[in-house]
């Protein structure tokens, strides 16, 4: 790292970390407000909380082997995590390609990418999910024939597939949700990537050209690295949004966390326990991801200096 030559440009260091009486007063006020809220809810909402019924749905004892095995909630959670990770990857690829197409000099790529973004950004997510699944995906899925191919695969391949994509029995269901979610989120990623590409100064591209780099090299080594670094914060926001949006595909019977939660609600009749518990799980995943992106952002900022 090079020595700091311009100390005057540094942000002021004096961040107060000591609590004053004003902070204490505010803290007391907040606690009172929360307490009042809880008390009000308790008196208005007549509900006998009973958390014990949902635990068996997290882990159960398998009657055959007598061992603890994951039950519906963990299965749903794993599906949601798989949807999220693959979704981020696929939406990221779609977004990068479409972002490049959207900033292309040629008309056709621009036309395709513009239609894609406009079409999806101007439809409510729920409507998109329904239209996509019933009109488009029901055409694509039988052609892909993923389920049949997986069932024909070797046991080792099946084991890997079940780790990466979940139970082979539900693989069509999973891919349907994944495609739906990726196509949907990809449109928003496209816009973020476009903003990133447009933030790269023209001089950089011209410099690349003048060094005799090919078009692909300019894009791959000059434009995209700078573009993606510039848009890391909004990109992180969009990926966290993707995880939360994954609950939308429960509407079309993709068996992820929200869908399982609905089934458990019906079985246990414990509405709020299931809601609260599932919300906490979503929070943990999204919070974890935002911490991870925080680390990435700081690293990108250091590399930038």
């Amino acid at each position, binding site marked *: 790292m090079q020595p700091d030559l311009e100390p005057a440009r540094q942000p002021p260091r004096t961040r107060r970390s000591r609590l004053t009486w004003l902070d204490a007063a505010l803290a007391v006020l907040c606690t009172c407000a929360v307490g009042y809220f809880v008390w009000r809810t308790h008196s208005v909402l007549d509900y006998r909380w009973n958390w014990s019924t949902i635990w068996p749905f997290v882990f159960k004892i398998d009657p055959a082997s007598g061992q603890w095995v994951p039950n519906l909630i963990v299965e749903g959670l794993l599906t949601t995590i798989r949807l999220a990770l693959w979704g981020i990857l696929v939406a990221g690829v779609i977004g990068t390609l479409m972002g490049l197409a959207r900033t292309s000099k040629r008309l056709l790529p621009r036309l395709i990418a513009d239609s894609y973004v406009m079409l999806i950004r101007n439809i409510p997510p729920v409507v998109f999910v329904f239209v996509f699944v019933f009109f488009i995906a029901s055409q694509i899925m039988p052609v892909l024939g993923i389920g049949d191919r997986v069932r024909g695969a070797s046991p080792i391949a099946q084991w890997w597939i079940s780790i990466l994509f979940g139970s082979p029995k539900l693989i069509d269901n999973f891919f349907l949700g994944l495609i739906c979610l990726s196509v949907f989120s990809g449109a928003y990623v496209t816009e973020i990537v476009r903003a990133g590409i447009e933030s790269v100064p023209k001089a950089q591209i011209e410099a690349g050209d003048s060094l005799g780099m090919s078009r692909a090299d300019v894009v791959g080594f000059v434009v995209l690295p700078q573009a993606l670094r510039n848009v890391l914060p909004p990109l992180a926001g969009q990926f966290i949004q993707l995880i939360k949006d994954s609950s939308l595909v429960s509407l079309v019977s993709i068996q992820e966390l929200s869908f399982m939660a609905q089934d458990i609600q019906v079985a246990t*009749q414990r509405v*709020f326990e299931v809601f609260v518990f599932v919300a906490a799980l979503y929070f943990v995943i999204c919070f974890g991801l935002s911490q991870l992106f925080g680390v990435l952002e700081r690293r990108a900022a250091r590399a930038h200096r």
Partner: protein
Amino acid sequence: MNATTKLLGMLALAVGVLFAADAAVAQQDNLIDTIKKRGKLQVGFSSFLPWAIRDKQGSWVGFEIDVSTKLAKDMGVELDLMPTAFDGIIPSLIAGKFDVIIGGLSVTPVRKEQVDFTEAYSQSGQGIAASRQLASNLNYPEGYNDAKVTFVCRRGAAPCKTIEDKWPKATVRQFDDDAIAFQEVINGNAHAILTSEPKPTFFTLQNPDKLFKPTNDYVTTSFEGFALRKGNPAAMAYFNDWIGKNKDWLKQRHTYWFKGRDWASSLPAS
């Protein structure tokens, strides 16, 4: 790029999608042959007590599950259960996600326009449960026909229509799930709920201080049939024949799931 080119591009895409959708509906041969060739009967249903519920082990149990299991066994094929969100169950059938809905789907004129129903394999009644706090002083049934009275029901389910017919002046609020709808009545935010028995009875027994039953009679009875995509006469005849042959067995299973609670011990206690 101008606005016209953009619009044309989108239109072309939309037309392409519609044509693709049309082609899928057109190709359809004998459903029973398709099922037997595949070796699997795909059944769409939605979780609903006691039609289809998850037990403590997370497996499916219930009246529908018994019916589907026996049907698949008699056809000599595997059973592929496809739990589906109730809102999308008919579109899913039409889109070809599964062969048949065995999901407590009541036969209604509106649904008959979209799908074909077999003969009834079960008869169920809609029952009412009301809030002690709000509805104790109301006369049943005329007192409930008032704009101040709020009914709740499961969205898209048959009871919503019944409320409209019987108590046209009442306010109706629809929920995605019965458990939430019941909670609304227990909390005193709605006067009454209409849903298929035995749920109203069970919930009233579980919450005797909050709920009561204005009447123990069925508000209305409805018949449930298997739902098939339109234009499958051979499959229709096959299923009707199966239902006819198994009348007594169906009645016996229906009694087990709807008249008693022997099965409750395998479910998570609420």
